């Protein structure tokens, strides 16, 4: 395996070529918009290549820890969290391949969703822990999209 330069560095080289040599030669505004989109997508891929698998594993571990506490609580929705948690733990592949981690992460997302729902009426530490999981997930998503702005129609 060649690991240096990294995937992100290779994508960076593509972005540089687009920005410095291809974009200046483009006069068609639609193509220029396409290039802008391509550059943004490449920027997100740079972050994902560097961090995506690690972040998913970290998030899954954090979800499992907090969801275990929710599942063991007396909250009305605890049993639903426990069911999803059992499925997540028993089906977790242990593989580091992206497709397998993504499947594991999807099951962890269901666990988190049920924990969000089970604690919705709570105001204490457990609820804050669940919301912190959402905040952590959002922080990773924000790191991926960077300064992306969604501009709608006028």
């Amino acid at each position, binding site marked *: 395996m060649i690991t240096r330069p990294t995937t992100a560095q290779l994508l960076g080289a593509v972005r540089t070529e687009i920005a410095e040599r291809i974009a200046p030669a483009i006069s068609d505004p639609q193509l220029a918009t396409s290039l802008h989109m391509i550059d943004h997508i490449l920027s997100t891929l740079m972050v994902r290549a560097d961090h995506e698998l690690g972040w998913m594993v970290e998030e899954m571990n954090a979800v499992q820890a907090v969801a275990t506490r929710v599942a063991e609580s007396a909250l009305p929705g605890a049993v639903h969290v426990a069911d999803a948690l059992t499925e997540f733990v028993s089906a977790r592949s242990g593989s580091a391949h992206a497709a397998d981690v993504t499947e594991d992460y999807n099951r962890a997302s269901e666990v988190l969703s049920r924990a969000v729902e089970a604690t919705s009426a709570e105001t204490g530490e457990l609820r804050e822990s669940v919301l912190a999981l959402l905040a952590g997930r959002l922080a990773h998503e*924000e790191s991926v999209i960077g300064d992306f702005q969604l501009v709608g129609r006028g």
Partner: protein
Amino acid sequence: MLEPGALRTRLEELLRREGEPDDVRVSDVRPIQGGYSLVTMGFTATSSAGTRRYVLRADPGAAAIARTDRRAEWELLAALTADGRMPMPAARCFDDGALLGTPGIVLDFVDGPQLGAHAGASDDAELGRLAAGLAETLAAMHAVDPGLAPACCPRPASWDEYVDGLIAAWRQLEAEHVERNPFLRHVARWLEDHRPPPAPLRLVHGEFQTGNVMLAPDGRMLVVDWEYAHVGDPRIDLGWCQNVAAFNPPDLIGLDPVGFCARYAELSGLSAEVVNPATIAYFSILGGAKAFGQLLRGIAALARGETSVLTTAYLVSAESFTHRLWMGATRQLDAMAALQRQMEAVR
């Protein structure tokens, strides 16, 4: 696709059928920018009776899928035009496609800018004036008798059924997506847990934003694009207006949200408990499932390998962008509610 050249003679025939003199001639047929899903063309009709400018709103033709029904929209617009109280350009005639080749509605042309575009180039004083006008326009819209809505117009049996349906749309989005989404589940549960006091059901626009308001030369604000009109909670229009303004500033409601709500409440007769910045913010989230669903369906198609459109790939980032908006909005509203509870406890 409607070509301006071929459309000219078809429009002449339509206008004659609707009572224009035989010598009517159509000219200056030009597309109007703005809508995503429908064809919108401006044109001039000249006859011995005079010269008038109109707008044609038509389905995009066989190659594209129209998301809404032009005949249903016409039935509503015709009823509202006959009533005369809705601030909108008059609807003149409808063709089911027999003449135009695709169903279309002809309305009066408004010779003025979109409110949103005008607001974007306005100073603070003008923005304040526009915000006041917007509150009055919304109140006037919502004062129209919802009984005028034709039978084809969606009409919930109760306020609870209406809100339940909108919350269910959030859950359905998540259930149908290609991966589980805790943010959607959070929003759906939050909406269930934070229902505001109910408001009387009114005829609402369903996609109200400053891009759908035209400024007439006499200063009136005229509301266009009624394809999503239904009977519902009037705050859905205020909320959606704020939602769109988050992407397309300026936010005329957000300039002075307390003042805006107070003015709208005064004109509409609704209480401050029913209309306030917190309840409007609730509806800005509640009504978001429709637009977000369009985004998510595109992303899901990409994930399933059904499309490889670059714009859809680019808009994957928009999903995260909206996650941030919702989390921010629900956190802010929770903080406002907590502060209010503290203030009430002090009193």
